[in-house]
């Protein structure tokens, strides 16, 4: 599903922040991406969701060489990827319901065709009574849950989450992880970037550990 071969990344003329990354993310796999702060977790996630281009190496996503993608090809791949941003990136002028249903909307689906799914998911993540609310009035935890709901609503083939449980209490964090696990069982590959060791210890999953710009795999 995802293949990195000797991938390197540098910002401008600086040193390489990621070096010689070679790994695969298999279909229906579940993994944690971890490492100390500043190790490059967010940069690796950006490479995974095609927000950054590598300065060297080859990235293959869904059997497509990402260096040859045009605008439409990039958009088509991104529709198969769900992303939870560390800073949530909700649209402030849209209600929680509208933010979560955005992936369906950009696909051109009728509102009536996805309404039930969005409501069900919002209720599951505990935002059933916040559907009308705009992001500026949501708490950090509520924003995070809305961001997670937006990432999973279209059941992507690949889910990337950057510290998805950082702002929620442990029990809700566990519930959100179960949602990721169920999504994984339904066929989605999941990559969760975190440095919460306690959270990782609760699940027997592959770990990708970034250190000094290099990746160490613990299957």
């Amino acid at each position, binding site marked *: 599903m995802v293949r990195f071969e000797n991938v390197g990344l540098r910002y401008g003329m600086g040193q390489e922040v990621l070096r010689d990354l070679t790994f695969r993310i298999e279909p229906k796999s579940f993994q944690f991406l971890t490492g100390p702060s500043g190790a490059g977790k967010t940069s690796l996630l950006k490479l995974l969701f095609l927000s950054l281009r590598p300065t060297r190496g080859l990235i293959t996503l869904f059997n497509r060489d990402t260096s040859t993608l045009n605008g439409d090809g990039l*958009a088509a791949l991104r529709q198969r990827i769900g*992303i939870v941003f560390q800073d949530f*990136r909700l*649209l402030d002028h849209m209600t929680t319901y509208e933010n979560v249903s*955005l992936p369906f909307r*950009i696909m051109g689906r009728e509102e009536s065709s996805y309404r039930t799914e969005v409501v069900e998911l919002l209720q599951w993540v505990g935002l059933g009574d916040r559907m*009308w609310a705009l992001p500026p009035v949501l708490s950090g935890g509520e924003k995070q849950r809305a961001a997670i709901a937006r990432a999973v609503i279209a*059941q992507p083939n690949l889910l990337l989450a950057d510290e998805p449980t950082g702002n929620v209490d442990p029990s809700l964090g566990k519930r959100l992880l*179960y949602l990721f696990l169920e999504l994984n069982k*339904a066929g989605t590959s999941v990559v969760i970037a975190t440095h919460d060791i306690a959270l990782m210890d609760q699940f027997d999953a592959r770990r990708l550990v970034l250190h000094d710009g290099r990746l160490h795999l613990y299957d």
Partner: protein
Amino acid sequence: MIKKLISRARGVIETPVASATGAPLPKVESSIVPPQSIGGRALMAVVAIMTFLASLTTGGVMLVRANAAEWQSEVLREVTIQIRPGTGRDLDAAVRQASDIARGFPGVAGVRPYSRQESARLLEPWLGSGLAVDDLPVPRVIVVKLASGERPDIAALRAALTEKVQGATLDDHRGWIDRMRAIADFVVLGGIIVLGLVIAATILSVNFATRGAMAANRPVIEVLHFIGARDRYIAGQFQRHFLWLGLKGGAIGGAAAILLFALITPIEAIIRGNAGADQFAALFGSLTMGWGGYAVVLLQIVLIAAVASETSRRTVNQTIASI
């Protein structure tokens, strides 16, 4: 499918779902582009002001052009025969003879000799009223109206008059017309240059205002881009939004200009009789834009809105390229 996933996840964990059920759903989907922003309102104000100025300039140019053309054609359809008094000359007989010659000429629609009293009235602004015309060598004037659409042989008429009527001269106002035409052409050309500059300034200011309004929308473009919206979709959303903003601003500015032109006629009626107003009316005639003027104002509104829309599309594409 989501329902299935959730119910399976619910089976794994016992924690009850902490949410309200039966919450009403939003009835209307919000626009993808934030509908109200400071940048958007500023852009609308810029569009309205620039459209107003451009419309005023257009209206002014069209007004001068139309009135100059009308006024020139009026004067061109008229020539004047003047008969100077002379020793032993019977002016009344000369006027009759000259009138007959003019009437018999092809292309002449009407001949109107001015009586002694009318000639005296023409001199009133200089010599005062109650003038004893008989005591003065006042020339007599015959106004010859030319048929519209025809081009009578003025040179032949002049030759016939000079040959048959002593003291008769024919003035076709050519020299004066040429000078006035040159002035009118200069005014219209100046107006067109000013209009061109105003339209260029409008396009530039709308362009910059649109870019300013778009800067606040970068996070929206980024999110749409990252969740898989096609570039065309994102650009289309912004194009529609800014086209509508431009049309609203343009309609406000254009309507204000049209209203101003519409108000000039009643104001003109109120101040009529005033010496300055009369001179102004004599020079510029009726101060109405006409359908052509309204059409040009509408065209400007559409053009300015299209500039805002196209700028937003380019800015979206540049933003996406820079992400």
